[in-house]
Structures are given as structure tokens and as C-alpha cells.
């Protein structure tokens, strides 16, 4: 096997797959990238068994063949070679390759390609097209709400489903960690073809890999799904994400319908106040207090032994005076998802979940459970 490739292209491709090539893994081959030459193309694959990324690039190819090379080391080598240079890669005896550019030579040990896990099949079902920017926005809004606790397997995923709204058929993403929840809808195109009667639960890391695709430039992402995998493709890159086989809680049940008290605030001002008060909020719990009364919302925090912070914000609120505790980080994440100038907090009492959403749009809402104040 041998081929010649542009150094910058090689760096790009290898950077793109690094997140999936596991560094510390029980299977050494998973820290490797599978490099294949054939049909005038260079194919680079990385897999952690849950996520598989494949990138295809036309190269000046010589002899076809394939080998698994340590992904990190290969990128380190590519990076130190001169920019815009041509890099020659040739397989030598055993599982070695020689990498050269100009007068620089590297010999790198790899593993036989047979050790690399088999590629999952491409789902045979219908393919739907989602605008890359829409996918990015939706995932940005909900991903921070997913659980990082790996023992809460079902909450570590993002729910993808079709939502029929006044605005038509939408792609909906939902995430929760058991204390808070976010739901975001985006233009789904023909999403019904993919999620007609099913929901899929996609691990957070997989959503982030697909988001990377979306961020690689304008254009849409092609999605399809099989029983086990969500498949996404854009340009020269393809991603397989193994679906979580777990039950996502019935999120509709926790969206309150009786939160009749509303407070309307300016989004940016609220975000600022939360950021300021967070400085004095206790570590770990990040607790802050929201005191609603009349036209003012007071946000405060107290750190035992350290001190306090307090700030005021204009609010349109007509309910009784109320003081509610929250994890300030949760509120900050919820506010980040709002893109309108004004936003609404819908309340019931000090111990029930609060809805945070844009004033007009119906395409996003966050629910945050309070902290009980004693």
C-alpha cells in the first residue's frame, strides 16, 4: 500500500476523527485509525464501537491496501511536517509504514487491518435531509441538559422524535438529567420519513459528532436510521452512532400546564444578572435565589463563610411575592437556549418546576426544578 497526500488535508482528516479514536481503551486497535487505499481514494475510519466516523478523500494513490495506524501519533507526525507539503505514505514489511516529506522520514508501527472492527452497514431505510445549521442549533440547546452520569443510562441520551406542531412537521430534540429538561424543535423537512412512528435515543457523544459534521460548513446533513444505528453523512464524511437501548422518561408528563404566574424579562439582562450572582454562589450546588415581587426580580446568592451577591432586574410580574431557589447553572443553560430578546418564566410555587421559554416562539422550552429553601 502506498499513496501521496497533501499534508494539510491529512491534518484535517485526522483531526476530524481524533474524538472517536479512543486513547485509553481495552482494545488497542481502537486507538488506531484504519487507513485504506482503493479506487483512487484514501479512506480513514475511527471507531470506539459506539461511534464510527469514516472520511473519504481522493488522493494520488499508488498500490491499494489497508492498515491500522495509531491515530494520535499519525496526527502528531502530520502536524510537524511542513505546511502545504506532499506526504508520502508507504507500507513496509510487517505492520510498519514509512511516512516521508522532503528530507523528513518517519517509520510508524501499526496493526493489521483485520483487527479493526467491522464497519456497520449503512441503514437501508429512507434518507432525510436536515439543514446543518438547524441540527447544530437544536443540539446546542439541549445537549447541556443531558445527564453526564453514566449510570443513568437513559438520561445520558438525547431523544429525537417527530413533533407535529402548528408550524408543521418538526424534528424535536429532548434532553434531561432528572433535575431539568430542554426541548427544541427545528424545521424537519421530510423528518417523518425517518421518525414516522418511532423515537430514537442517541448518546450525547454521538450527537456531538454529528454536530461536528454540521459545523464543517454550510449545507444539509443526510440522516437515516436502522434498528441499531443513526447514520449521518455530509460531504466526504459519514458517522454511525449506536442508539441507546433504553426508555427515555415520558417528558410530556413533567411539562406543567398549571404554571399560571408569568414573569417576563429581558433575556440578555437576565443572563448578565445570573452571571454576576454566580460568582458568590456556593461551589458544587451553585444555588441562587430568585425573589419575584411587583416589577422587580431580585437574584441573590450566599456562600457560607464567604459572602453574598445581589442584583436587580426589571420584570413584568403580577403574582404574589415569591422566593424560589435554583441551581444557577441550570438557569444559565436555560437562558442560553433563548434567542429572542424577551423571555418568560412560568411559575406555580416554590417547589414546582418552572418553564423558561422565549416570549413569542414556541420552538424551545426549558424546565428547571427548584431547590428547596429551608
Amino acid at each position: 500500500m502506498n499513496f501521496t497526500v497533501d499534508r494539510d488535508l491529512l491534518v484535517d482528516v485526522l483531526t476530524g476523527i481524533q474524538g472517536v479514536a479512543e486513547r485509553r481503551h481495552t482494545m488497542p486497535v481502537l486507538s488506531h485509525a484504519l487507513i485504506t487505499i482503493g479506487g483512487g481514494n484514501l479512506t480513514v475510519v475511527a471507531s470506539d464501537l459506539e461511534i464510527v466516523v469514516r472520511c473519504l478523500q481522493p488522493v494520488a494513490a499508488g498500490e491499494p491496501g489497508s492498515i491500522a495506524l495509531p491515530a494520535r501519533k499519525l496526527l502528531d507526525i502530520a502536524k510537524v511536517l511542513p505546511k502545504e507539503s506532499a506526504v508520502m505514505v508507504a507500507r513496509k514489511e510487517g505492520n510498519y509504514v514509512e511516512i516521508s516529506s522532503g528530507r523528513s522520514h518517519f517509520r510508524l508501527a501499526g496493526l493489521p487491518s483485520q483487527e479493526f472492527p467491522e464497519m456497520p452497514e449503512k441503514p437501508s431505510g429512507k434518507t432525510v435531509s436536515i439543514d446543518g445549521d438547524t441540527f447544530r442549533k437544536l443540539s446546542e440547546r439541549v445537549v447541556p441538559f443531558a445527564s453526564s452520569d453514566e449510570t443513568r443510562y437513559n438520561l445520558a441520551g438525547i431523544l429525537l422524535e417527530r413533533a407535529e406542531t402548528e408550524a408543521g412537521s418538526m424534528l424535536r430534540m429532548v434532553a434531561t438529567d432528572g433535575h431539568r429538561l430542554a426541548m427544541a424543535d427545528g424545521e424537519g423537512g421530510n423528518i417523518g420519513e425517518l421518525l414516522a412512528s418511532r423515537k430514537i435515543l442517541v448518546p450525547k457523544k454521538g450527537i456531538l459528532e454529528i454536530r461536528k459534521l454540521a459545523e464543517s460548513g454550510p449545507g444539509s446533513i443526510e440522516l437515516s436510521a436502522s434498528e441499531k444505528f443513526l447514520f449521518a453523512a455530509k460531504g466526504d464524511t459519514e458517522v454511525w452512532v449506536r442508539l441507546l437501548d433504553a426508555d427515555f422518561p415520558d417528558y410530556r408528563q413533567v411539562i406543567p400546564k398549571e404554571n399560571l404566574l408569568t414573569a417576563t424579562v429581558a433575556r440578555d439582562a437576565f443572563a448578565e444578572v445570573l452571571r454576576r450572582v454566580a460568582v458568590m454562589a456556593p461551589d458544587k450546588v451553585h444555588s441562587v435565589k430568585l425573589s419575584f415581587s411587583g416589577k422587580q426580580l431580585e437574584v441573590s446568592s450566599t456562600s457560607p463563610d464567604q459572602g453574598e451577591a445581589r442584583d436587580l432586574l426589571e420584570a413584568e410580574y403580577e403574582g404574589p411575592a415569591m422566593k424560589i431557589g435554583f441551581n444557577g447553572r441550570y438557569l444559565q443553560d436555560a437562558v442560553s437556549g433563548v434567542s429572542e430578546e424577551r423571555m418568560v418564566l412560568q411559575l406555580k410555587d416554590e417547589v414546582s418546576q418552572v418553564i423558561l421559554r422565549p416570549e413569542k416562539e414556541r420552538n424551545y422550552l426549558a424546565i428547571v426544578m427548584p431547590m428547596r429553601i429551608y
Partner: protein
Amino acid sequence: MNRNPSPRGILHLDLDAFYASVEVLDRPELRGMPVIVGGDERRGVVAAASYEARKFGVHSAMPTATAKRLCPKGIFLPVRMSRYAEMSDTVFAIYRRFTPLVEPLSIDEAFLDVTGCERLFGSAEEVARKIKAAVREETGLTVSAGVAPNKFLAKIASDLGKPDGLTVVPPGGEHDFLDPLPVGKLWGVGKVTGETLLRRGIRTIGDLRRSSRETLVRTFGAHGEHLHELSRGIDDRPVETEREAKSVGHEDTYDHDLRDRGAMRRELLSLSDRVSSRLRRGGIRGKTVTLKVKYHDFVQVTRAVTLSDPTDDGGTIYRCCLDLLLDTEAGARAVRLLGISVSKLVPASDVRKKDRMEQLGLFSRPRAGTPELPKPVDPEKKEKLNRAMDRIREKFGPGGIVPGALPEGKPRGE
């Protein structure tokens, strides 16, 4: 490995036939009679047997029915755990007069590190004598002692002189002491390992010491390495006091399999109560609550939950266990043992005087099968209540106050 330059003085103290001895102490007319403490005849097992009963072949863990057959004239008594716990506390308090480094292994066994006590109390052997005398004088109980440079040797030593024994393994005397003993005396050598060793002609610890480390590792893996170390009398583990304990727990095996969830809940309440008062007595709190369930067929499962804040509150532990119980097949399958332990321990003094706010859960409505959860109580009030309960128990004994849901006449621990 860094071996201590000066040898340690480790004591293993084991109260002789503890439950039976306490019964004899409380009812002197039983002295000299075969006393057997344990569960009932139908399915109980012997918890302790006096030395008189042991002459008939009765030993602990034997089904009570078998014991009755072997020793029909025996005095069979039910277990009075709270009384034994009380006596145990008295004895352990005596131990602590000699050294703060007391590691309780169970209600009747402990390791003590008396290294460096020479100027106060004399050599390790002398300390052991003094403790034995003090325990006998102050409680009337006898304790067997093993004195050695490490825990492993001390434990084997105490077992050799029972009852009322004192066996000393001097530093440097490890091989002379261990070599003639059968390999079964080693920790981790049960029936299977013992038979494998026997097939290789290894009968005594001396045989084991003389066989090559490589062979042992090849046959038993990491365990082989460990065996080789033990056979040479090497054991570097420190004596860990309760404050450093990894977990605090209690478990009960029931006379009848529990089938009804209501009954299980009551048992969990009792266990939570005991675990929490031990936590408070030790001045510690724990973050992880683990429930252990052993079904009637001896299949055992554990379920754990980690809290956001460390707790020493019985109610909190109880509510966690109710939730965890739902994740088991308890009820659908009959249960013979329940256990609760609390781990990830921190000293209670380290727990920050919080901001007094508690994160509420989005999905934490009571699930089907759980009774309506009581409204959470202000943690400060809860602490006050717990402190008051502890004081009542200090004054009136463990039965001085019990949760209302626990049936009368069935105080804690029985």
C-alpha cells in the same frame, strides 16, 4: 516494599463463645451447661455455642435442628443482639483505654495496634495480658488474644489458644509459627483452593512457603501471589479504626422468608435506624446507600444510590432503600436477608453548614408501590430530632425509643 524497620505490635482479640458467654453471665445458673444461641429449630442456625456445647460437636453456622440432634439436653436460647451489642461496647471501651487504634471486625473481634505503647503499658504481650485481665474483671467475659507483628498472624494466633488463650508470635518467629499449620488456616484458602493445593502435595503452610512463587501464580493467578506472601507471614495492612472504615452497615437474616413488602419495609426501617445511629455515634456521614437482598434461594443482589449530600439520618437512608427495593425482585421472590450499608464516608464535622437548599427532582414523584413520601423536613430540625433520639437511647438503652412503625416488643436488633 518498605517494611517497617521496627516490628509492629498487633493484637487480635476475640471474645470466647461471645453470645453464649453473655447469656451465662446474665443467668449464672447456666454456667457449665451446654448453651446454644441461635435461630429456631425450623430453619435457624447456631450463632454461638458454649464450650460445653461444642463437646457435642455443635458449632456456629450449624442448623439449629442439627444441634438439637447432637445435643438434645442443650439450653437453646434466642439471639438478643441488643444485649450483646451493649456488652461489646463495654469491652471495646476497655480496648480503647490502651490504644485509640482499634479496628472492630465484628461484634466480638477486633484488631489493636499497640506499637509504641511500651512505656505506658509494656510490651505487646503485656498489653494483651492487661486487657484480658481488665475484660475478665470488669465484665466477667474471657477473651482470646493473638499477639504478632501483623494482623494476619495475630488472627491465626488468637484462634490457636481458645478459649482464654494468649498466643504470641515474636518478630522473626513467623516461619516457626506458620510452617506446621495446615494451609486451611490461611485466609482465602477454602475447600477448592485447599484441594488444589493438596493435589500438589501442599498440606501445610510450610509446604506452601517452600513451593515456588511462579507455580502458585501460574495456578492461582494474583491469588497465588497473595498466598505466597501469606505463607511467609507477610501482611502490611494497617489497623484501621472505625473512623477510617469504608462503610457502616447492618444486615439481618430472617427466621421466616419475607414475602410481604410491608414487612420488608418495616425491617428496612429498623436497619436504617440502626445504621444511622451507628453513623452518628461514629461522628460520620455517608453518601452512598447500598441495599442488599438475598432471596430464599441464596441468590443475592445489591442496589446502590449516591446522594448529593452525605447523610447520617435514618429517614433519608430508609427512603433511599424503599426506592432501591423497587429495583429488586423482592416481593415477587421471597427474601431471607436484608442488609443496608452506607459508604463514601466523611467526618460529620467536614459536612459544610450548607446553604440550606436542596435540589428537587423532576421525575421523583412516588412510584407505584411506594407509600406517599412524607414532606421533607428541614435538615436542621431532623438533626435535632436525631440528637434527641440518641440521648434517649444513651439513657434508656436502644429500646428507649423506636420508630412508631416498628412493632412493640420487637426492639431494635432482635
